[in-house]
């Protein structure tokens, strides 16, 4: 097993509130890792740090490249770190920092291969389903302005490729019949699937799902678990998910990370986690000491 994502010593403070305290875990390549914990444990904060929406106070988040082995990608660096005094006699570091200060942000993290969905669905409501998926492929199809205006052969081929890729994902999520509907008019369950399809259109290596089963009925949840397994088994995709539905989590995940009060209290195989005394205490409370 090779690790894809390593989170080390991740601490996040909002003013005086410490939301995360030295969180550390690894996500293995082509595995399903679940992040669980009671409400307010800091699961979504971890997600926001990993996907670049929060800038972690300290710590490292590294995306490894097991295929080429060219080295690790520092996801925190992409958000634009503050300058340090030592930078001024190291022009390379300084220029990198300056570059990411100007052009960095969550979008860079996505381009590095981390895609995410949101707890409260964030679709482009006034755009059609197909357009939602085309927007996600922006970074890949982006041709020149002139090429698009003149509709060059290259531009049309790129657009066609994007439509074909989007069609494949729509087929996978059984949304093909809705391709030309406005995303905002879709039923809730469809919207959940569309958001996953949209995240996948960015061609990620790591897919982060924030409560994908929230609001789904048992049948839909069952189908969803099949889908997530298919993503891992067929496409070799790595999935990191937050979920409250313990049935789903225990069914599909290879590795569990349990958070409570911003700290990792346990991690391991689902069977082991079910027996863990600290996890039981966090979820169910402890008896009188």
């Amino acid at each position, binding site marked *: 097993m090779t690790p894809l994502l390593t989170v080390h010593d991740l601490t996040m403070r909002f003013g005086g509130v410490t939301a995360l305290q030295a969180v550390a875990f690894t996500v293995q390549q082509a595995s399903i890792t679940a992040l669980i914990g009671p409400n307010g444990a800091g699961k979504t904060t971890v997600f926001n740090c990993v996907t670049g929406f929060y800038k972690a106070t300290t710590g490292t988040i590294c995306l490894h490249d097991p295929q080429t082995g060219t080295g690790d990608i520092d996801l925190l660096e992409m958000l634009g770190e503050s300058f340090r005094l030592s930078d001024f006699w190291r022009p390379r570091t300084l220029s990198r920092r300056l570059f990411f200060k100007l052009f960095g942000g969550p979008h860079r993290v996505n381009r590095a291969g981390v895609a995410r969905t949101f707890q409260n669905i964030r679709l482009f409501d006034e755009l059609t389903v197909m*357009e*939602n998926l085309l927007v996600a492929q922006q970074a890949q199809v982006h041709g020149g302005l002139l090429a698009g*205006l003149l509709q060059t052969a290259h531009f049309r081929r790129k657009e066609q490729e994007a439509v074909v890729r989007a069609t*494949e994902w729509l087929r996978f999520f059984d949304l093909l019949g809705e391709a030309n509907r406005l995303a905002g008019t879709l039923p809730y369950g469809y919207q959940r699937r569309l958001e996953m399809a949209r995240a996948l259109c960015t061609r990620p*290596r790591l897919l982060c799902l924030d409560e994908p089963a929230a609001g789904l009925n048992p049948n839909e949840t069952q189908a969803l678990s099949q889908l997530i397994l298919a993503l891992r*088994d067929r496409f070799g995709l790595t999935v990191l998910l937050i979920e409250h539905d313990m049935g789903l989590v225990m069914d599909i995940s290879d590795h569990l990370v349990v958070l409570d009060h911003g700290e990792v209290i346990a991690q391991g195989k689902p069977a082991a986690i079910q027996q863990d005394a600290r996890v039981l205490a966090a979820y169910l409370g402890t008896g009188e000491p």
Partner: protein
Amino acid sequence: MMGTDWRAAFRVGGVALLLFTPLTGLVLAGYQLEWHWQRPLWLAGGFGLGYGLLRLVWRRWLSGAHAFGQRAAAGSTTDPARHRPLWIGLALGVALLLPFFLDKYGINVATLALIYILLGLGLNIVVGLAGLLDLGFVAFYAVGAYTYAFGYHYFGLSFWLALPLGGLLAACFGMMLGFPVLRLHGDYLAIVTLGFGEIIRLILNNWVSLTGGPNGVSVVFPTFFGLEFNRRAKQGGVPLHEFLGIDYSANQRAVFLYLLLLAVVLVMVYVVVRLKRMPIGRAWEALRENEIACRSLGINHVTVKLSAFGLGALVGGMGGVFFAASQGFVNPTSFTFFESAHILAIVVLGGMGSTTGVVVAALLLTVVPEMLRDFADYRVLFVGVAMVLMMIWRPRGLRQRRRPVFQVEPSPQPAFVNPVKKRLRGPGGGHPPQWGFGGKAPNNPPNNRSDP
């Protein structure tokens, strides 16, 4: 659907007949009643027919949502409105021939209408597509106009150079405005842009040594490949009418400017229509819908916002150059906040993001006030009433933006039930889609653990 239309028309005719029979059929002449039985019949017939036609027109062309539903059902890639090329051709023909049937005043009004179309198209990019409420759009209009004025005044710049330069300079100003307001939304953004527009106007008004202040700057009329439009050319030049061997007419220069502007407007309409179907246009709309989702999809919101401000300002700046050329003179009173509000009204009335809507609204809001010169005092009232009526009947503008329709082949079987067993098959062949991450997928059997 036709049947219901005509039945409703018949009902309206019936009601009209009931009403008009006593009102117009019976006429008191002296001490006796005269019976005019044709009158109510004609009136009722007219009302019924008119109502029916109006309903038909409404259903066919004006109701955007309806058309969209039909198209989505048909699932065609091409535009379903078969009458569209006909309409566009007709409008083009009228636009081309119009200046030859109008007097100078008429041509000037038409030119002004075209300038407002240009401005509307520019603001439509910023407000309609990118969703950035800009109340200071007139600043870019002023930048364009003054680029031509200063360029001519200080550097002897010709119209043909000033046109692209004015656009580019306005685009630069657009991006300059864009940078500080990157984090602002909605009301806050509106206030800042409003301030920006006023700053530009106040600078033009008060920096008298450079701009001439309220006295303004005069502008030379464009030439046609060096040929002038005057009765007598300046030293060494040849006036156009001598070159072509035709009689001089004061209309020639107005017609020329009109046709030139028409060409630019057509190019810009094409550009905007294309932009909406290009990645950049989709990114603008996505940004309007949800900025956070945009960032999570690898879209740099900074460049997307700046490009919207820049391109919108570019179109506005070109409108400004044309305004300066048509007036022959610019001064700051042409660039007040009212102008910004007017352009915004065009975009809102036309329908956010709809090109056709903006064109129609620009024509309406420019030509109708000119035609109703006698009621000039009620002009703003007219706009206000139009807005209120629109809020009631068409809250999304005259013309709702239509979404492009993509052709996808229908799914042969529901894949969601058990996607693991289903094979992916692309329209182009039997290959599964190529993902960037690749890697060998481990074939673990699904874990079947029991619930805790």
